[in-house]
């Protein structure tokens, strides 16, 4: 068995159980005595609940319990209000419903069928209220209020402390960023560009819907099996809602069937626990596909961007207003808006900025985290406008980006110094992959035009944050890794094993990464924000180094060899005269074949960086994308020929795993660029299924997707690695829009880039008077 290594592809540890159909996902699990939960949801976007009567539902055979607002309002043991940023959500609706699909009641029954029948027997009288269905309506001075008031938590996220709802309005939060002197900046500009870009809400559409099993022991201890990306956040929230100490809540997370941001923060866990409490027995709740659309979406946005540019292409001023539709509940929308604001300047040095980024309440399903987290919204505007500027100034779009783009040591918009910045390498390599600057020689029909487009981005990771890991060296020198990172498809188990195995010089086959159980693994903030390799990887590395330190100590004590004469190589301990196996040293220490060495590692990122500056990100993501398209000028039909995605990964620990993340994120981006869109009619979500909400399939793929790993190591990452989960998604839509412009000269500013939009724009271009 060869020792584990980094920079080398290893077969993923989660693969064999998955390809044999043996991997257990939540909906495959059951617990003894379990009954089935179902949720009654609002048919109205906004209504007051006059009356709710569950008596008929309780008579349906097989029904065990019905949960309504009366249960959560009059129970001393329940805090009805919760939410990751503001306490604006309730387990079931209390006074009013705020979006179609808002939970109104829930049933626990012996079968799913009985639970569904009981839902139909619950009598609810609604008094419909006027609804605000988009941000333009919601921000009018006399708009109907989605929330009359919003409760603030006693303490919350450090990075969001300054953001508060604007009383008496639908503005959930308003993030401001000002830099330099905006008026002087525009006065110094030779050209001013002003454009508005929009993008619709989309849905994560993981094939595994949200699900939960909740079980409450006599005495009140809560156990939940959850489809969550952040078990420790769910644990804290459940402890707060059900008023029990954190130690009395246990969250177990099996493999997830995808997450993409849609499984962070509490989703179905609070309602499942409340239902299990009421039922007095365990409850399993598995959402239907339709319900997932009511549970979480990606923020639709309207972005107005005004940019001042010098003749030579230098960006000198930008004013930008971003309105993000956060739906009926804040969820994590305030941070999404903040991240959009931070990246409204893109990866560019713009000395004068005035940025206002709002999350706005509307009567629509809540919007929250989605791979790309606010930056896929801002980048749509930033990168589309870059090409508008490049065209007007007759500058090559690649040159314009490189002229303004960040280099190592430049200051980010917050004033902090950027470190490990592979932006221009990404741009060059993506451009090169599609033959940037070369005329297309391919054969094509007379009505088809080819074009090429580029885009790039910068993104931050959640900071401050904490990841802790424990590793146990067993008596036979095998290793158990305890880490709270959720394996949701990204390959974290394998990378963590590679890191520990590399440090200790032991083979992958002797390493086990344990499942996530908050009773067992130490604290980790979240599996999101592309943070796990960087943070948890480092924590595991430190934990493995802790084991080496202990081995050295034992050797010094037991063999009398001083520290400085002990080295490690290939899983052996080298002494001046001889070498020892870890298991020899374990035997010597414990006097039998037994015993455990426990190593600990912790990473706690700070709001101060190594330069002593206020820091908003523990590391930086840089990436570029390049698209080559064909457009049919008669129909507007767009065909993606090639897509290259270059991401600064710091160091590719598992190269195939990196390429999977890059290509996978790019494909999600292709769906959002070309056709994904949640459609509403009067507040009704009209395509909550996978026929009408179309996902990319094999047939939608370009002939080639080229995932390129650029390596500019970050000194604080494990072996230089950075996070990469989100980067590749962000440039896709603007790169394609820029390629469409290059092909046929029309500029699409409203996602998705559908054939009819291109067709209509082409028609308008033909007859500008019409």
């Amino acid at each position, binding site marked *: 068995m060869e020792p584990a290594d980094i920079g080398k592809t290893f*077969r*993923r540890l*989660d*693969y*064999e159980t*998955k*390809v*044999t*159909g*043996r*991997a*257990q*996902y939540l*909906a*495959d699990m059951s617990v003894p005595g379990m009954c089935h939960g179902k949720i009654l949801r609002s048919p109205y976007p906004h209504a007051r609940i006059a009356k709710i009567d569950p008596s008929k539902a309780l008579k349906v055979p097989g029904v065990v319990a019905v949960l309504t607002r009366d249960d959560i309002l009059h129970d001393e043991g329940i805090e009805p209000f919760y939410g990751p940023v503001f306490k604006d959500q309730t387990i079931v609706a209390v006074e009013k419903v705020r979006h179609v699909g808002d939970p109104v009641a829930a049933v626990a029954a012996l079968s799913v069928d009985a639970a569904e029948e009981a839902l139909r027997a619950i009598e609810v009288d609604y008094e419909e209220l006027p609804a605000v269905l988009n941000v333009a309506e919601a921000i009018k001075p006399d708009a109907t209020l989605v929330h009359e008031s919003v409760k603030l938590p006693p303490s919350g996220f450090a990075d969001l402390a300054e953001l508060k709802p604007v009383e008496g309005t639908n503005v959930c939060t308003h993030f401001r960023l000002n830099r330099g002197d905006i008026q002087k900046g525009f006065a110094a500009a030779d050209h001013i560009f002003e454009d508005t870009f929009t993008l619709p809400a989309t849905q*994560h*559409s*993981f*094939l*595994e819907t949200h699900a939960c099993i909740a079980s409450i022991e006599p005495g009140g201890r809560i156990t939940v099996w959850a489809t969550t990306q952040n078990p420790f956040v769910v644990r804290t929230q459940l402890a707060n809602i059900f008023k029990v100490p954190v130690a009395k809540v246990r969250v177990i997370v099996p*493999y*997830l*069937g*995808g*997450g*993409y941001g849609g499984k962070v923060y509490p989703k179905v866990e609070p309602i499942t626990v409340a239902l299990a409490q009421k039922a007095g027995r365990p409850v399993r709740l598995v959402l*239907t*596909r339709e319900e997932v659309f009511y549970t979480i979406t990606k923020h639709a946005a309207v972005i107005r961007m005004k940019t001042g540019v010098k003749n030579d292409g230098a960006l000198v001023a930008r004013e930008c207003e971003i309105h993000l539709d956060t739906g009926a509940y804040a969820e994590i929308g305030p941070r999404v808006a903040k991240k959009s604001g931070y990246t409204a300047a893109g990866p560019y040095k713009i000395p004068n900025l005035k940025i206002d980024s709002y999350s706005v309440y509307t009567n629509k399903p809540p919007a929250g985290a989605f791979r790309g987290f606010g930056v896929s919204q801002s980048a749509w505007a930033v990168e589309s406008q870059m090409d508008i500027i490049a065209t007007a100034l007759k500058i090559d779009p690649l040159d314009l980006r490189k002229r303004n783009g960040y280099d190592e040591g430049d200051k980010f918009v917050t004033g902090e110094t950027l470190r490990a910045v592979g932006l221009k390498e990404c741009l060059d390599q993506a451009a090169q992959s599609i033959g940037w600057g070369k005329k297309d020689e391919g054969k094509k029909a007379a009505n088809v035009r080819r074009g090429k487009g580029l885009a790039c981005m910068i993104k931050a990771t959640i900071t401050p944050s904490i990841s802790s890991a424990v590793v146990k060296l067993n008596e036979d020198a095998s290793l158990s890794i305890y880490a709270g990172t959720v394996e*949701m*498809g*990204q*390959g974290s188990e394998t990378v963590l094993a590679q890191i520990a195995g590399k440090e200790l010089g032991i083979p992958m086959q002797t390493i086990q990464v344990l499942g996530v159980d908050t009773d067992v693994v130490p604290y980790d903030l979240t599996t999101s924000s592309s943070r796990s390799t960087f943070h948890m990887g480092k924590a595991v590395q430190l934990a493995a180094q802790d084991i080496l330190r202990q081995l050295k100590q034992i050797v010094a004590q037991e063999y009398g060899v001083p520290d400085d004469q002990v080295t490690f190589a290939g899983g052996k301990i080298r002494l001046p005269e001889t070498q020892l196996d870890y298991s020899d040293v374990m035997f010597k220490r414990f006097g039998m074949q037994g015993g455990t060495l426990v190593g600990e590692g912790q990473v706690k990122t700070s709001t101060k960086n190594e330069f002593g500056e206020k820091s908003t990100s523990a590391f930086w993501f840089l990436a570029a994308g390049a698209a080559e398209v064909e457009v049919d000028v008669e129909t507007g039909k767009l065909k993606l020929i090639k897509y290259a995605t270059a991401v600064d990964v710091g160091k590719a620990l598992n190269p*195939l*795993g990196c*390429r*999977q993340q890059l*290509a*996978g*994120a*790019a*494909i*999600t981006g292709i769906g959002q660029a070309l056709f994904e869109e949640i459609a509403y009619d009067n507040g009704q979500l009209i395509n909550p*299924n*996978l*026929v009408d909400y179309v*996902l*990319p*399939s*094999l*047939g939608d*793929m370009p002939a080639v*997707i080229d995932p390129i790993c650029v390596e500019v190591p970050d000194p604080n990452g494990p072996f230089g690695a950075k996070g990469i989960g989100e980067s590749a998604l962000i440039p896709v839509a603007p790169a394609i829009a820029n390629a469409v412009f290059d092909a046929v000269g029309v500029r699409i500013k409203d996602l998705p880039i559908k054939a009819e939009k291109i067709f209509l724009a082409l028609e308008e271009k033909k007859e500008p008077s019409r």
Partner: protein
Amino acid sequence: MKKTISLKVNGSERSVEVEARTTLLDMVREQFALTGAKLGCDIQVCGACTLLLNGKPVSACSYLAVDADGCEILTTEGLSAGDRLHPLQEAFMDLGALQCGYCTSGFLLTAKALLDENPHPSEDEIRDYLAGNFCRCGCYQEIMQAIKKVRGSER
């Protein structure tokens, strides 16, 4: 209304009592505890629930168990021969054709049906045959490579 049906599941003769409205997916998952096939969209477009019925892929979420009476069913659990994995399973692992794994059972079975029908499919034929399977993690390029690696080989 219950009905007893007989069928062969992964090579074993089985008899089972099902409700007339029980789906094939619920039957294999709940009555045979074969949970490799997943419920994804529930309207036969995502392919996560795919099973092979007499060698042909069906969306088990929308197929009645009673209609499978007398048929032969293959699930992912039946793909390997003892400890020896099917070449498609090996290729999917070697080429990284899965991430979260939720769609994998459906892709493997659909790919097997394709290769059984057409041992040397072209890229376009693979694309067409697998158009009814979604991989939301976006492993399409790797899935294509894995199927191409296995096509034409001894299975």
